[in-house]
């Protein structure tokens, strides 16, 4: 891919096909996330966005093609292997462990880590990033407001010390003002050096902060370009941005 000559992709799908039973979901999907990038995958309902995420994380195994992490084919490696090696997901709708405390939620993010000092250090970092979260440590996660839950969800993901953050529909289920705030947050985390792969329906918002993007349609990548080019693309504008 142009612009990344020489660099190894952090996480990559090569000609990936997946099936749920007889249903063919992803069709020859190719995509690559490079270190330090903020990229987004756009697509409507049932276009295969979530399946792409699950394939990256190892919760769905491709029927053909390769999932590559740091140049290593990880098709048959379990999710925890990928988490240890720096891939983490912030699930759609946040999905916190509702009856556990905020602190327990954060600690579960670091489930696979054994470095106690590092974990404490990262907790402090998250309190710095989200002072609100620190105030609510002992509260049950289910009792937080939507915005606070989003903070905890991101904090939980950061606790595994990821190198690439997979975000499933970060704007889903949030009030418009919070969506704005949330994207600002993602931009900020990216600015601190994190690679972010974001799956979104809200194309306008996602492209406004992303470097590159893909458009997925019924399991096939139909567009692959820089964010500016995609924003300017008349086809995309017609189908996703409500202009025609």
């Amino acid at each position: 891919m142009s612009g990344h000559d020489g660099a190894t992709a952090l996480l990559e799908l090569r000609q990936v096909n997946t099936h749920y039973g007889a249903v063919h979901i992803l069709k020859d999907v190719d995509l690559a996330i490079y270190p330090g990038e903020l990229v987004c995958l756009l697509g409507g309902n049932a276009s295969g966005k979530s399946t792409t995420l699950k394939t990256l994380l190892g919760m769905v195994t491709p029927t053909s093609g390769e999932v590559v992490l740091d140049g290593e084919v990880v098709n048959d490696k379990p999710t925890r292997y990928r988490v240890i090696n720096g891939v983490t997901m912030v699930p759609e709708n946040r999905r916190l462990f509702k009856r556990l405390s905020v602190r327990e939620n954060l600690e579960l993010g670091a489930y696979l880590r054994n470095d106690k000092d590092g974990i404490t250090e990262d907790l402090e970092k998250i309190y710095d990033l989200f002072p609100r979260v620190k105030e609510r440590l002992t509260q049950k996660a289910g009792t937080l407001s939507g915005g606070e839950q989003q903070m905890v969800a991101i904090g939980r993901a950061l606790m595994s010390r990821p190198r690439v953050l997979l975000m499933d529909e970060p704007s889903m289920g949030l009030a418009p003002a919070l969506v704005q705030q949330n994207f600002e947050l993602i931009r900020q985390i990216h600015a601190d050096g994190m690679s972010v792969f974001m799956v979104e329906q809200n194309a306008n918002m996602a492209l406004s902060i992303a470097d590159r993007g893909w458009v997925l349609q019924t399991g096939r990548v139909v567009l692959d370009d820089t964010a500016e080019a995609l924003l300017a693309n008349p086809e995309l504008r017609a189908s996703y941005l409500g202009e025609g």
Partner: protein
Amino acid sequence: MSALVAPMPSSAIDQDWGKVLRWGLICGGTLIAICLVGMPVELDRRELIERYLSLGYVSVLLIPILIGRIAATQVVLEGFESRKQGLYDLVTGLMVGLLGGGCLSLLMLALDSWNLRDPLVNWSPKLFRFLTYENGMGFGAGAWIVTCGALSLAGAALHVVPAIVRRSTGTVVLSLLALSILEGAVDDLSEGFGLDWLTDLMYAKKGGLTLTSTIVVGAVIAVVSVLTSGRVKAATNRYRDMQGAERQKASMILFAVVAVLCIVLPMFLGKIMNELLANVGLFLLLALGLNIVVGLAGLLDLGYVAFFAVGGYTTAVLTSPNSPFFAPELHFGFALIFVVIFATIVGLLIGAPVIRMRGDYLAIVTLGFGEIIRLLFMSDWLGPYFGGAQGITNVPGVDLGFATVKGTDPRSVFYLVLFFCVIAIYVSWRLQASRLGRAWMAIREDEQVAEAMGINTVSAKLMAFVVGAVLAAFSGAVLAAKVGSVFPTSFMILISIIILVVVIVGGMGNIAGVMVGSFVLIGVLGGPKQPGLLQEFQNFKLLIYGMLLVFMMLKRPEGLVPSARRSRELHQEEFLQDAWLKGDKSDDDADDEDAVNVGDGGGEEE
């Protein structure tokens, strides 16, 4: 009058009649249901206060008091101005009671006019005589309407009187009830402490407190409760607010007291009480195991009795000389090693195929496995090995060198069970705070996300199954040694259900809750075949279990134990949410909705 009535929404006459009508009908319906279940007539034989009050009447009389109290309760919301309780609530209580009594009179009229004995076995002249005090229809109807009205009024009045009066009245009534209902247990205890003269003085020869002793004891308790009023609550609050080292110290003291009590008390208890404690221990052990599976890992296992059976049969085969095929006659201690091994194997065998299922499906499949294991032990196919329906008899007691633990000496059984319970409590407590415990809770909350966090969900779930299985098998092993035999019928599906009820009522995922649950349900009500303290309720045990389960799921899904403050927060939140959703602030409607909603939440959790 107007001085008494609070200024807020209404005068005493301006009632919320819909609410009164509803609670009145609930009161009446409950009264009729209790009568037709046959509880009052059957319990009438048991006298509580010699010649004046029988357990049968108490079972009816308690209802208007309770419902009067509930009907007059208002939901207090923080941040909202609440009405001062007063005459308004008294009128509510009175009306509810009168309505309830009216319903009961209608029942009497019906009893008198038609014979419906065919579908309703308790529709009998006996019930009629019970209700009318053998004095004829008119007297009975009048008496019940007045009594119910008065009692319900008294229930409502509990809100109005000063807290100290309320607390001491409650204490007096409850202690008198306990003293009279638990006469057998009190007798047993007093004998152990050499206080028989006191109980002989207190109780009449044919059973029941004498009128004089009722008055004297009541007065004594009243004085004591007024003197100590507030101290207990202050102490618990102080304990709750403690932090860090101080709290740890207090917990240690509490723990030491409980430990000493557990060890010393049985020495003073008679056979019956020790037998009861041993049963509580057996079920506590089972419940602690199920608590790990259901409460921590969120796997609804309805076939839990299978592991109980495996423990029992393994012990029986390995220790009994009567084992039909293979009788090594090992010592209990050696057999225990095999109990652990077989429990683990069976746990894995049952766990492996069902572990990928969720929620309801898991429950149904485990239910099936529970029955399969029992049927296998009963089958002709495995009959030559396990004795089929004849079971395995002559299982020896546990020879400890200095003593033998066997069923005829329930005290020793209790100590053996206590030993296993302590292990189980320690293991549960350590696991809860461990990495594995965290993983279980994460799986319970959201399995997919837990997997995404890198938790190996399959092995964590299998671990929960195996740990639960081993604890249940220990309980089965002790049961075999205690009873001296095992039969397929000792391992009915009902045991699974009852243990589940114990866990739910006590509080899922809460060790202290499970302990309280076992004491309350198994100790007081009794297990599936084991009598509890309330032996009179033997026939109604399952009914009460069911009612308790429904009540808990509706009103207190978090279980008996979690702190009252926390639960108030929880319910207040739901209440406000419902009020907001309905866009309507009518108190009782929202209250109703509240109940439904909590129920849904409970279902979801499973």
